[in-house]
């Protein structure tokens, strides 16, 4: 069934239980494949990262839409759950990937900001999500927050996960955390834009739960919307090549997450503060994620950092007088 409103958390729970009951009879879910393109691929990453970190029984991986279509993994089939996201609902590669998944006998969840999205044609479960990053009231039903819940539901059913209640409580806290952080950074975004409006390149650096936020800020906000050269460097990879481009003129946005990977982020930050000096920090801890509790704060770090990353991008758009909607190619020409 297609829902016109955003899916509720109770409906997510019910859908995952139904999927569990259906697939349990044929050996259970062995793989979760996260499939999308660009920002909509990245927004599924919180699910991959959570399952990779906490599940003993389910393996997860992300694949860009067209690679899934042309070269789907051999093992994708009836024991697979394929989660596809297209914010607009019509991304051709993701729609084709949904078809590939469906024909292979996988269970398919399609997620979109539009109820009548073409993507939903091949979905067994069709989820309507919020795509409004800056709306506090609905951010708990924003795509990447919904797939986090999806992950926690799987962990409860398959892995007897100890911190499910803490995680559900954290999801309830999302709107209030969001509201606070938007207020907290409101005076920082335009100065960021002013300081970077003449830059030809801005790198992002991230790891662990914030990797997707760094990737999206790079490819969607800087490259796509602001036409600024960029690349997202994994904080752990920084010292194995990329750091050699650091000089006192090259700007970096460094994401700090709470949890196990923070040590990598801090190491990258320390180096860049010394050798670049043009470093902007987006820190989930400073943005208040720790109120959700020590066992799950790591997994919520990325979805909070993403809000800040987006707001800084907007600040750049204002300072450059280059609105987000301006495109050279997307939707303008055939490709």
């Amino acid at each position: 069934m297609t829902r016109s409103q955003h899916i509720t958390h109770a409906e997510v729970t019910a859908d995952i239980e139904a999927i569990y009951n259906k697939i349990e009879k044929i050996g259970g879910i062995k793989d979760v494949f996260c499939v999308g393109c660009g920002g909509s691929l990245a927004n599924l990453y919180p699910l991959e990262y959570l399952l990779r970190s906490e599940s003993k029984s389910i393996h997860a991986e992300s694949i860009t839409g067209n690679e899934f279509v042309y070269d789907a993994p051999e093992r994708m089939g009836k024991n697979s759950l394929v989660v596809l996201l297209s914010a607009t609902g019509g991304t051709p590669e993701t729609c084709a990937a949904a078809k590939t998944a469906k024909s292979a006998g996988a269970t398919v969840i399609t997620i979109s900001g539009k109820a009548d999205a073409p993507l939903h044609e091949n979905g067994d479960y069709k989820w309507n999500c919020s795509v409004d990053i800056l709306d506090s009231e609905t951010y708990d039903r924003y795509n990447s927050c919904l797939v986090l819940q999806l992950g926690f539901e799987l962990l409860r059913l398959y892995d007897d996960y100890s911190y499910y209640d803490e995680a559900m409580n954290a999801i309830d806290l999302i709107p209030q955390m969001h509201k606070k952080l938007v207020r907290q950074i409101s005076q920082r975004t335009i100065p960021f834009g002013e300081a970077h409006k003449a830059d030809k390149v801005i790198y992002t650096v991230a790891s662990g739960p914030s990797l997707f936020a760094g990737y999206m800020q790079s490819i969607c906000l800087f490259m796509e919307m602001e036409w600024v050269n960029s690349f997202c460097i994994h904080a752990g990879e920084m010292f194995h090549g990329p750091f050699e481009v650091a000089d006192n003129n090259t700007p970096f946005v460094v994401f700090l997450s709470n949890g196990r990977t923070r040590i990598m982020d801090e190491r990258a930050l320390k180096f860049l503060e010394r050798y670049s000096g043009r470093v902007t920090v987006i820190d989930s801890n400073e943005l208040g994620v720790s109120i959700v509790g020590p066992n799950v704060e790591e997994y919520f770090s990325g979805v909070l950092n993403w809000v800040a990353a987006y707001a800084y991008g907007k600040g750049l758009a204002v300072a450059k007088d280059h609105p987000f909607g301006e495109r050279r190619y997307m939707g303008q020409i055939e490709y």
Partner: protein
Amino acid sequence: MSKTVKTNTTYKEVTDIVNELHKHYGAGGLKQVYFTACGGSLGGVAPMHCIIESEAKSIQASIITANEFVHATPKQVDSNALVVTMSSKGGTPETIAAAKRAKELGATVITLSTNPHNSMEAAGDYHITYGFKDCPYSQTSNALIVWLGFEILKQFENYEHADKAESAFDILDDICDKAFADSAEPARDFAEHYKDEEQLYVVGSGNSSFVAYTTCICHLMEMEWIHSGYINAGELFHGPFEVAQPNVPFIVLMNGGPTRKMDERAVKFLKKYSNKVIVLDACEYGVERFDPAISEFFNSMILSVVARQYTETLGVAKKHPFGYRRYMFKVAY
């Protein structure tokens, strides 16, 4: 003390390792293979990740940079997992730590490096010594690790194309030598035209995505101090392509095989909107001489030879040799 004579691991010895693994895990006992290393060595283990991820019917595969593997270790790393790690000299601290972490959790660990005795070798269960320069291509890490990947599929899953994969190694040196020779002149031409660029993007997909990644982070950013970015050809149209313009250069790696359509689409678009598109096409360098059932998994071998020649020649033209560093091994970090 006598100097140890270095001998590279042979295919027979790699097969022997897999024989032992097969006995160790038993039927259905090997559930996951993890690939973990840093920078260029992460690119080094990637060709095997690609084989397992794409072709295995039951074995799952993940590739993770070493320090993330250490600090945010996947929950499935246990006695049912195999961990493959690489460090060229065998001394990368994060990679050694990853091998140790994997061992603590009960996984079996294969390490690869260019010398037989080092901290990496000591941290793992099996060690593969590979050649880097001045050896046939068939003795490099790429060749040995791809052999290892196919051998695992053969022994654990009775891989239907195992014979074809094995035969590919008979013509590998010939194809790679020829690719090296044939790319020398276009590489010089590229270097002359692009030696003053401050920014060079690298686009790749499928089996060559990590060649593109390594070209970007090691050969351009690290060795030549050129701003760069790696773009997956499938992701190009979902953001990155908006930076394409006249005078913005892109190196595009093209594979033969199932993902070629993605690469062709990227080339077609970029050539229309940028006048600086450098195409390195595995088909032009002989990938189609391999059997079509397995040729896909040899793209990265050919393109790594060609791409390295291009960037190393760029370094010569820039008078900025590959060995220059500002920070690596020079400052504390």
